[in-house]
């Protein structure tokens, strides 16, 4: 009898322990890993972490872990994570990372989230840049427009007017160059390649024809390259640009050693206080054919196939898209939001640089998919490929275009032939 009683006691205890374990397992929050790129200034990561903390507070069953990922070696960071099975649940990333990862079966479409938010909620062109094979491969959240910024003080000191055409730009650059000051400063890294993208698109050209063929040697793009080569030949481009990284070029511009620089519209807000008012945005310049245009990057958020909590991840994505305003208002992020509703906020409407970029440049901006449009996986390889950094370095070195363009065109053809 006592044996039977002992058996029942043990059974009851086992039941209690099992029940407690199940309850504990059910109560444990789901952990989501969110990898966010280091989007410019240091305040950004602080604001993003704060936003994640708010989400965690409002959703006790989910715990989002925020990780700020540096841009250095970003591609190897993500590819090795995916290849080793340790990808995040959700991440921001480079402009064409989502479409590339989608082609490699590493991310899943976010069609349902787009549907819930509504296609009309996004600025024109943002969704198109994330649509591939009938799916939205990432959720657009920021539009990064590249434009020419200029130093008002340098132009005033030399009695120069703000240029409105390429010819005027070349003349102004030449006029202000001298005594350690240059007309234009760039870099030899992937940011320096933006100079090529901006001017090619400005001239109605680009890397691709309308039917998607490599077009670095097309007439319009070659004209843009000749324009840049002429600037270098004039001595208007800081020769150090070849070895500069983007932050060197920005520092040189802030120090008043260059009159023009290509960067994001909100760069003045990141400048030292005494420099801020001296920086202006150059109105869209007309190319020799009368075209205007510039280059833009549609930054997006993607959801990884490796996530074991897709439901919670999509819920977080939707929440993030609806509550991300502090990334700008507190995080001082330089690009502007892809969501129309956030753009209506006084923060953007009262900021002349944002307002100007949104109203004047957004309608004429194109991604590096120009002139084809849309998005495709090969763009990820094009964006940041060393062949284009080499091309821009050789361009600033003054090497002849006939020597430096064919290898870059061959590389572009190789990428597109994959």
């Amino acid at each position, binding site marked *: 009898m006592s044996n039977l009683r002992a058996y029942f006691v043990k059974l009851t205890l086992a039941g209690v322990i099992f029940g407690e374990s199940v309850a504990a397992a059910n109560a444990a929050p789901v952990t989501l890993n969110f990898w966010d790129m280091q989007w410019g200034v240091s305040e950004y990561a602080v604001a993003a972490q704060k936003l994640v903390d708010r989400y965690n507070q409002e959703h006790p069953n989910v715990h989002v872990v925020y990780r700020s990922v540096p841009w250095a070696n970003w591609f190897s960071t993500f590819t090795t994570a995916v290849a080793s099975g340790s990808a995040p649940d959700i991440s921001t990333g480079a402009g064409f990372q989502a479409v590339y990862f989608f082609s490699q*079966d590493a991310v899943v479409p976010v069609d349902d989230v787009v549907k819930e938010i509504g296609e009309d909620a996004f600025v024109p062109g943002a969704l198109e840049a994330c649509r591939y094979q009938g799916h939205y491969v990432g959720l657009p959240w920021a539009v990064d427009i590249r434009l020419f910024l200029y130093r008002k003080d340098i132009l005033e000191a030399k009695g120069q007017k703000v240029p409105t055409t390429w010819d005027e730009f070349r003349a102004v650059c030449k006029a202000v160059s001298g005594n350690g000051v240059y007309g234009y400063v760039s870099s030899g890294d992937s940011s320096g390649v933006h100079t090529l993208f901006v001017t090619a698109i400005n001239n109605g050209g680009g890397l691709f024809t309308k039917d998607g063929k490599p077009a670095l040697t097309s007439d319009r793009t070659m004209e843009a390259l000749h324009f840049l080569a002429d600037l270098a030949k004039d001595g208007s481009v800081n020769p*150090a640009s070849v*070895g*500069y*990284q983007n932050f*060197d070029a920005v520092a040189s511009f802030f120090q008043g050693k260059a009159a023009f620089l290509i960067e994001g519209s909100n760069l003045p807000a990141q400048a030292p206080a005494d420099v801020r008012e001296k920086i202006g945005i150059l109105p869209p310049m007309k190319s020799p054919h009368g075209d205007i245009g510039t280059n833009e990057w549609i930054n997006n958020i993607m959801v990884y196939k490796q996530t074991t909590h897709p439901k919670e991840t999509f819920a977080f994505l939707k929440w993030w898209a609806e509550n991300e305003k502090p990334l700008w208002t507190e995080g001082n992020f330089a690009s502007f939001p892809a969501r129309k509703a956030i753009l209506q906020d006084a923060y953007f409407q009262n900021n002349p640089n944002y307002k100007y970029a949104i109203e004047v440049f957004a309608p004429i901006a194109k991604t590096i998919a120009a002139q084809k449009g849309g998005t495709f996986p090969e763009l990820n390889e094009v964006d940041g490929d*060393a062949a284009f950094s*080499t091309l821009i370095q050789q361009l600033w070195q003054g090497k002849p275009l006939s020597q430096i363009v064919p290898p870059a065109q061959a590389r572009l053809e190789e990428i597109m032939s994959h």
Partner: protein
Amino acid sequence: MKGFGTTVFAKPGFTTAVILLSPSLLLVAAVIAYPMALGLKYSLSSGSLLRPGGFIGLANYIKLLQSPGFYNSLQFSVGFAIANIAGCYTLGLGIALLMQKGVPGQGVFRVLFLLPWIVPSLVAVVSWRWLVGDEAAFVNRIIKAFGGSPIFFLSTSGWAVLIVILIKIWRSFPFMMLSLLASLQSIDRTLYEAAAIDGATPRQMFRYVTLPQIRNISIVLCLMMMIWSVNDFDTPWLLAKGGPANATQNLVILAYRYTFDRNDVGMGAATSFVTLFGLMVLVFFLLRLQRRK
């Protein structure tokens, strides 16, 4: 007649030796043999890190050997290694000889000379970037102070190559100096006394006593320096990202670019194996040279 295997297995203590060696053998297999075998497999395959492809034989090697970028990187790697070995050896031996003579403040100098070797590569190379980065950099200020025109060290291919070599020599010579100093101090003094009695001049003593005595350590040091130079990623990458216009892109940077920029693991692995093969051939000949009396 007993076979070789039978003889070895029958040797006393064979089992004990196997048991004692097995942890090391397993470790070597796990951290060297397995990754190398995997790398070799990748070099014979197509595909990316995310989506491995199938076996393509020697296609990656053929493509690599037909690529102008490979020869550009090979040329830089060879030049970089030769210049670094020559520079480090000359500087290291010169300073070691001075130290051996017993210059005043020898202890302080020894610490100062070791500093470039101790400083982390990132700090060292980034500091050099500040020194030569543009026309307002420290070196250009000095050039301008003497009436010269600024030099864009990192924008001109030739200058960038020279700066990368100089920085590498600056970072590496302390190791050479320290090792050669130790070797010089171990030479039997009676050899110099005998040479002096025979009427040898200091130059003859250096040629016929010092150099033969440090021959073996010199070969080993040059061998190590060659391997470190060819495999150096930090210096050319942190200083110029392999630029300008690929002027400082060595084989390691090329392999990195294939693997991570282009996501072409096969080509990256093939580049690494070609580099490894080249190094192994050089190591073989240098070790044979060392054995020759």
